[in-house]
């Protein structure tokens, strides 16, 4: 038994990354970032607002949180809708209570189906980030370029139509991209994306069509990862985020502004028995000196 000799050839083995999207960079070796108001820590709340068709698609993959039982999966269809109807409004109230502006990553279908919800988001001063058309619109290598472009463009169109403003930012479903995604986003006029989790500050990527900013939306700190995947309690989630905030605020003293992204899901964190932990968390964060809530658009410098 032996492997193809190509398996021991390493064509990209040279200094730097093994692709052309971005350069390696050490977080601790960059010019210090100064946030507006000279905050040490910028907390970005990003809420995903998603519509799952009861007719789930697996092409190219089934989105996290999608239907699980044989058709018709009432339990998951309605549980996700619970988040949109109820949990999200609890989150809006929790944000309003501390005067925080968030970024809401919205499926285009949400804007078409629930225009009143979009009006409430805009009226509260939150940013709208494009998040595909609906939860069947997943992207991965293998999808046709024109199909992917249509997902991006339709999503931006639907959200612009509902709010009067074309979103500057993009979040892919499950942060999943094809090789084409960064370029297509640039070509469709997107200023920043939230998909790459390799950093803790925004940085610039390049494509043949031009540059795009990536604002790392840490998936490890999301309610989905901590509560749904790792099965920790809402209080444990709160403690973990508080520990992260403590660490980053200390680090900011020596290295400049730091960023703490909180990726939230209405049908996870917006439940009656969990929302209190989020309220306590946001109140505690808001009470810290040197901490500001910034939208991801503000952080990217795109708004």
């Amino acid at each position, binding site marked *: 038994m*032996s492997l193809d000799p190509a398996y021991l050839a390493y064509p990209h083995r040279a200094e730097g990354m093994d692709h052309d999207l971005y350069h390696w960079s050490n977080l601790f070796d960059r010019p210090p970032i100064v946030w507006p108001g000279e905050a040490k820590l910028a907390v970005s709340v990003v809420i995903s607002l998603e519509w799952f068709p009861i007719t789930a698609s697996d092409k*190219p993959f089934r989105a996290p949180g999608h239907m699980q039982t044989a058709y018709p999966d009432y339990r998951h269809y309605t549980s996700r809708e619970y988040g949109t109807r109820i949990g999200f409004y609890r989150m809006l109230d929790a944000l309003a209570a501390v005067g925080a502006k968030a970024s809401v990553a919205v499926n285009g279908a949400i804007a078409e189906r629930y225009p009143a919800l979009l009006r409430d988001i805009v009226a509260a001063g939150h940013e709208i980030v494009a998040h595909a058309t609906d939860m069947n619109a997943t992207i991965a*290598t293998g999808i046709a370029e024109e199909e992917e472009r249509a997902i991006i463009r339709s999503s931006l169109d639907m959200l612009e139509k509902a709010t009067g403003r074309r979103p500057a930012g993009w979040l892919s479903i499950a942060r*999943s991209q094809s090789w084409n995604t960064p370029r297509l986003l640039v070509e469709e006029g997107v200023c920043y994306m939230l998909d790459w989790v*390799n950093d803790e500050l925004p940085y610039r990527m390049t494509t043949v069509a031009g540059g795009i900013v990536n604002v790392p939306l840490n998936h490890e*700190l999301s309610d989905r990862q901590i509560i749904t995947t790792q099965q920790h309690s809402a209080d444990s989630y709160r403690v973990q985020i508080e*520990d992260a905030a403590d*660490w980053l605020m200390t680090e900011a003293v020596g290295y400049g502004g730091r960023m703490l992204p909180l990726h939230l899901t209405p049908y996870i964190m917006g439940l009656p028995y969990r929302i209190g932990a989020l309220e306590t968390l946001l109140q505690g964060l808001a009470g810290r000196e040197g901490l500001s809530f910034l939208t991801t658009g503000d952080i990217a410098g795109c708004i």
Partner: protein
Amino acid sequence: MREGEKDPGLYDFLPYRGRPKIEWPDGKKVAVWVSPNLEFYEIDPAPNPHRKSWAKPHPDVVGYAHRDYANRVGHWRMADVMSKHGFPGSVSLSVALCQHVPDVVEDANARGWEFFSHGIYNTRYSYGMDEAQERAIIEDSIRTVRDATGQTIKGWLAPALTHTPRTLDLIAEYGLSYTCDLYHDDQPTPIHVANGKLISMPYSLEVNDHYGFFVYNMSPRDYADTLIRQYERLAAEGDESGTVMCIPLHSYLIGQPHRIGPFEEVLRHIAQDGRAWITRSGDIADHFIGQGYDRLLADAAHQSEDAQ
């Protein structure tokens, strides 16, 4: 190993009582070594017919970017905490990191860390390699680490824990003295190889941060508590005969902002306790081979005679 047999014949059975006593320097009870995995994962690796690299079609953005976080963010945060509390690293190194991100390797070297090989990339697996191919990656590892750091590797942790029946014989033949691939003991033990001397260095899957966070789904504070319990037990048992505790880390996990604070408390606890020989895997291997290896081997032979 004895290929194809039910018992691979890696080592002798040595029960955890009545062994020759292992004495660590200065009367310490437990040798503690911290093992950061400094890795490079390829975004679009060549396929291995026996194991898939990424769960999703390439690019697997979250999988790749999560690991890339290590070299941009996690390493620096983790390394500073280790240095602050006096813990050197014993690095499980994807040796191609020496080419891709030399700053990380130079930083680890400057901190006095030891390097052993964890293969070329953590996305290139040994499964299916013939002997010449496996020799090539061992020789590449020795040469690459020597060129980049001046160090001669003494140990091996197979890339992504992928082995062949030849691996242990080959690394011993090339003069490496320890493997981190076997999990049968809390003390170093002699390993049967065709030629040369090879010992098993107690590593750990159970308290590996990857297991802690992604197999057992621990919170950061629960993982810290786990490490302290592991330490306390091994330090207590080290009264009888020296034990080894390894803390295997991936900075894309332990270097996350919600985890590094609780982890720092673990290092503070061990550093202040006084019973730990805080050291590197190669130093443990050198000490054990100089002091305990022959006695343990003789003892094993003796026990085997008794059994007969």
